[in-house]
């Protein structure tokens, strides 16, 4: 879950990292008064979650209050990567002498946090790593042994930095390492971290990503920053259909019937589980089918949950048929899913036999499940029909 720049900076400020004075503004008048309060040249930056602000012209410098107001008006409407600006950050402009890069993330192979540092900040770090490998250091550190500043010092020193700069950078980088672990982050980045002409250091821009699973453990911080539970902060904002899907999943705590992602096709999918859904979605597309949605059922959901998910998918305009498919199930009961989807069709005013293009869920309680499907005239198959072929049968019924 990505933070906006102003939220990242609020977290940095809480930890006493050096930052320029700034204000979040939502109108030209506010931009004007922010300029006056800060007093002096400022930079205005669009507050979006996606990158590429500079390229899009959504970062501008202003030397007086009128210019700040005018820039606000021009920056706010700029859409970046399909995303509208939430607000604009007005920050004191700093005379920069040199830029540094520091980021901490997880290395899934080493299964440890990795600290990446460079004395060539401000530009694309991947590029620096390729062209100037001696100016980028990568340092893994422990997640259980006590953290100590020498790790930051070694990482900085490895790029050739020494003298006063080394001693001033070390506590900043060390603090970021602590922030990374303390808040269950998946990314803590400062780029650029700047040395100003007067020799002091300052955070110019920062990125924070918090692990979605850890949100519950950091409620106090999220409340403080005003980040509500409904903000998923995925690559794109959720559609109404997806929000309704999340509500279906929250109906009760039994199993999963959710993780709905909307697509613009006409074949509704009631599929599962994690890996099975990916496999089946590919299969439908390979057969030339157009999925109306992605979703996951698993962990033995209640009849009610399977029913509500079915109703939601059938409520989508243009969806006349659904395919109900899973891999061979272990802990999900076939009969419970069968009952749920049949009920969902009936309550949507549709005939299950015509609506359910195929039912392919083999495994626990399959005989009981198939009995229900026979009663309603629904086409079903067991494990002798592959996931791929089952998807093919469903797609064939649409053409």
């Amino acid at each position, binding site marked *: 879950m990505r933070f906006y720049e102003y939220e990242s900076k609020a977290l940095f400020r809480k930890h006493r990292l050096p930052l320029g004075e700034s204000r979040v503004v939502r109108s030209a008048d506010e931009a004007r008064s922010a300029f006056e309060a800060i007093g002096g040249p400022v930079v205005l930056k669009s507050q979006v979650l996606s990158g590429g602000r500079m390229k899009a012209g959504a970062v501008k410098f202003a030397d007086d209050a009128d210019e700040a107001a005018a820039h606000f008006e021009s920056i706010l409407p700029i859409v970046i990567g399909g995303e509208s600006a939430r607000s604009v950050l007005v920050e004191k402009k700093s005379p920069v002498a040199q830029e540094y890069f520091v980021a901490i993330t*997880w290395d*899934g*192979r080493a*299964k*440890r*946090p990795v600290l990446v540092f460079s004395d060539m900040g401000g530009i694309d770090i991947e590029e620096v790593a390729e062209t100037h490998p001696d100016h980028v250091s990568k340092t893994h550190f*422990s*997640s*259980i042994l006590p953290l100590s500043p020498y790790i930051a010092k070694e990482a900085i020193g490895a790029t050739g930095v020494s003298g006063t700069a080394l001693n001033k950078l070390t506590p900043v980088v060390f603090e970021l390492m602590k922030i990374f*672990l303390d808040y*269950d982050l*998946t990314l803590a980045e400062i780029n650029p971290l700047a040395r100003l002409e007067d020799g002091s250091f300052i955070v110019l821009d920062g990125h924070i990503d918090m*692990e*979605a*699973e*850890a949100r519950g*453990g950091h409620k106090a911080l999220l409340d403080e920053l005003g980040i509500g539970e409904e903000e998923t902060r*995925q*690559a*794109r904002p959720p559609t109404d259909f997806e929000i309704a899907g999340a509500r279906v999943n929250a109906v009760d705590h039994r199993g999963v019937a959710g*993780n709905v*992602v909307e697509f613009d096709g006409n074949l509704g999918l009631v599929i*599962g*589980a*994690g*890996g*099975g*859904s*990916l*496999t089946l*979605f*590919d*299969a439908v*597309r*390979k057969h030339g089918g157009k999925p109306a949605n*992605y979703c*996951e059922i*698993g962990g033995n959901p209640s009849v009610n949950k399977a029913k509500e998910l079915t109703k939601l998918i059938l409520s989508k305009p243009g969806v006349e048929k659904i395919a109900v498919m*899973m*891999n*061979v*199930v*272990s*802990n999900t009961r076939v009969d419970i899913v069968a009952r749920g989807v049949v009920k969902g069709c009936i309550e949507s005013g549709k005939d299950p036999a015509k609506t359910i293009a195929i039912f392919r869920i*083999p*495994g*626990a309680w399959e005989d009981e499940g198939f009995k229900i499907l026979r009663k309603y005239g629904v086409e079903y198959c067991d*494990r*002798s029909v*592959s*996931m*791929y*072929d089952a998807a093919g049968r469903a797609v064939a019924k649409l053409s």
Partner: protein
Amino acid sequence: MSILIRKDTRFIVQGITGREAVNLTRENLEYGAKIVGGVTPGRAGRDIYGVPVYDCVRDIVKEHGQVEGSVVSVPPKFTKDAVFEALENGIELIVIVTENIPRREVAQMVELASLRGARIIGPNCLGIISPDEAKMGGVGGPAANTRQAYKKGNIGVMSRSGGMTTEIASTLTAAGLGQSTCVSIGGDAIIGTTYAELMPLFEADSETQAIAIYSEPGGRMEAELAEWITENDSRLPVVAFMAGRFMDEMKGMRFGHAGTIVEGKEDTTTEKIKRMEAAGISVAERIEEIPDLLKKRLEEGK
């Protein structure tokens, strides 16, 4: 032979009185597992299908002697503590069933395990099965369903999806290919044991003649496997199935498991398939192609 577990592997279940844990305890016992005890703090003195419940792992070890393994099925908030408890009581094989554990805690558990010379499978997995020997975890479901899908044989299976572990085993069984050991390794971004880390075990197991894996977008695990195979001149032919090909065009969106997200080029299925094929891994487009590919590779002798 098999890897990780055998008929006589003695293990415990932590969180044994929870709904899921009760089910898996019954299913494992019916499949022949040797479960010597269970832990739920404050519930000492009860029993679950004849398995005595204790407050602490220490109490089981004191009464029944050292045990080899533990299946951990406790809520995410308490998982790290339960795993630390198992590790500090000398347990060497820990299967973590629980999902939704933040990466930091997973990393901490894995790091302590490596300091103690122990192995973690999972989190967010269904466990391990050596067909006709024993199973540890929910893999395969009820014993009757498990016996239908899994048969003893020569194929080692590793899968990032618990459900697809059974789908693949069932497909292999139908084609007359039994399995030595199947491991549901877990779907998170950081897991206790990756494909490449299990390879030396399969390599050393005389029963295993080939490997089938289920893989997904996200992470570097497939690249790590490809490197391992190249560097170690593995005797085992490997056939992989790659799911989630549609995700290549959907950067930053999370589908399926927590570890399944395309952030950079290396996370895409296209890139993973390229790397695996370069290392000599056969990549199947459909699950039902796996048995034929395995048979072909076995006939070719590698």
